[in-house]
């Protein structure tokens, strides 16, 4: 007597496709996923708890380690929250510097997402192309703040240091070359018929569902909702830039991927404009606001959101008037975007699970905090 039987497959925690130490317990019927059970916490370091015993400035290096692929944006979110709490006005020059570095960080993160997505689908060379640009970006970050991944560059009230001299020619060269590089990704990955067959129509996320589950970032925008905090609730000097928000139509894996590629072009535009404005400003202008040596925000509570590389990145900082924050909570976009993984994977093949996880672009440092 023949009968079929479901079997479980442990994908992860050590698996090339889960983008970190993430475990997915798949219940399979042949190759079709019946149920996907996400299990995480393998990278939980308790950053929220650690922050309680650190001073406000000392928390900044820890925020680097949340989304380590776009650490500048994490820095930015945190320092802006504390600035909001203390009512600090940041000098214009610092704002532009911040925009440049955070958009560079977004580019670096999207480069990795694009490349890793190609790798998830089996195109190894598609992985190397975006990494070439990411490498250039990291070289520039190294010039700016001495580190390639965990920058700790932003400070409460400004930035740690001025942009170095050698940075300007490097970024100009990069900006000149970058559009051609994105065209290369389009030719090598986006336009490839096999790639499209693998991603188009796969795991469609309807706009209704995306909103219900609080998705954000490219995942939400791919479902056709124009929601970008840089436009909707501008922070810093983002209201002064001219850029578009790419929006997808179907909400499938291809749209989620393509949104990131299109966003890279927009980030490129923003960096160009910011660099222009920055060079118009007089060099003598200060880079840091006047901040007391010991940062002691008044008693209070602020929740502030920015548009991170993976989605809406929110910081909830509560101060009790001492030098240590009373509570820091991070709204991690990867964590919330991941919450629908079970439903998105159901009914798709094992190979699609890889494509779906890749299209969500999660970082386990952020999921587990």
């Amino acid at each position, binding site marked *: 007597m023949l009968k079929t039987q479901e079997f479980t497959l442990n994908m992860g925690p050590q698996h090339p496709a889960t983008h970190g130490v993430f475990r997915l317990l798949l219940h399979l019927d042949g190759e079709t996923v019946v149920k996907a059970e996400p299990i995480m916490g393998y990278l939980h370091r308790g950053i929220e708890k650690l922050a309680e015993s650190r001073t406000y400035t000392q928390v900044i*290096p*820890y925020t680097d380690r949340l989304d380590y692929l776009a650490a500048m944006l994490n820095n930015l979110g945190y320092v802006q929250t504390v600035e909001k709490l203390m009512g600090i006005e940041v000098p214009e020059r610092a704002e532009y510097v911040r925009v440049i570095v955070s958009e560079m960080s977004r580019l670096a993160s999207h480069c990795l997402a694009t490349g890793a997505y190609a790798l998830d689908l089996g195109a190894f060379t598609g992985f190397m192309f975006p990494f070439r640009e990411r490498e250039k970006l990291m070289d520039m970050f190294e010039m700016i703040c001495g580190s390639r991944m*965990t920058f700790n560059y932003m400070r409460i009230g400004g930035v740690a240091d001025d942009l170095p001299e050698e940075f300007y020619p490097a970024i100009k060269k990069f900006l000149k070359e970058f559009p051609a590089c994105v065209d290369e990704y389009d030719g090598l990955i986006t336009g490839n*018929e*096999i790639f499209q067959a693998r991603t188009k129509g796969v795991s469609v996320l309807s706009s209704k569902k995306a909103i219900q589950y609080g998705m954000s970032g490219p995942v939400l925008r791919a479902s056709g909702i124009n929601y970008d905090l840089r436009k909707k609730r501008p922070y810093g000097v983002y209201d002064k830039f001219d850029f578009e928000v790419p929006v997808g139509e179907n909400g499938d894996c291809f749209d989620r991927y393509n949104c990131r590629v299109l966003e890279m072009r927009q980030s490129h535009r923003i960096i160009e404009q910011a660099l222009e404005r920055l060079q118009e400003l007089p060099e003598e202008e200060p880079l840091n606001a006047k901040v007391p040596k010991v940062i002691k925000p008044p008693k209070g509570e602020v929740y502030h959101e920015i548009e991170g590389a993976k989605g809406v990145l929110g910081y909830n900082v509560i101060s009790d008037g001492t030098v240590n924050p009373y509570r820091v909570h991070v709204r991690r976009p990867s964590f919330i975007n991941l919450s629908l993984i079970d439903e998105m994977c159901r009914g798709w093949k094992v190979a699609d699970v890889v494509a779906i996880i890749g299209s969500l672009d999660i970082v386990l440092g952020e999921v587990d905090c």
Partner: protein
Amino acid sequence: MFGEGLIKGLTITWKSLIGKKITVLYPDEIYSLPDRFHGKFRFDKDACISCGMCVRACPNKVITLETEKVAKKKRILKYEMDIKYCLFCGLCVESCPKDALGYEKDFEMCQYKWEKLPMVFVDEEPLPAEEKERLEEEAKKAAEAKKAAQEAAKAKAAEDASQGKEG
């Protein structure tokens, strides 16, 4: 047409196949590190005033600083960085008022043995009691001598001034 994207992909990889290679062959060519590179730490013992700012700035409590007071001067007994906990955030270097801490352009900090990981910059025995006393005595003498010299100089200056006035 179906297949267009496939052929375009092949042309792109063909271009990169015959194009320039960008890898830096590491031990043969050294990639030039920027000035701000966060690498191995440099500690200048003589510049350090043992104020303890770096110890307080460190988020991960990496730095141990032990001092003893000899003749009103702080003497560093131990300055150690437990590098396995270091985040390389740079807050210690930033907080140093005397530029005693800094970076070197060296990132090869691997050690074969776990115990060798902490970077020990200063590790000295505390001075024996008699040596301390001697130094303190000397310092006292020196201070007295200095004071005397100063007073003498002052007196001389006053003398000069009065002479000058007279003259």
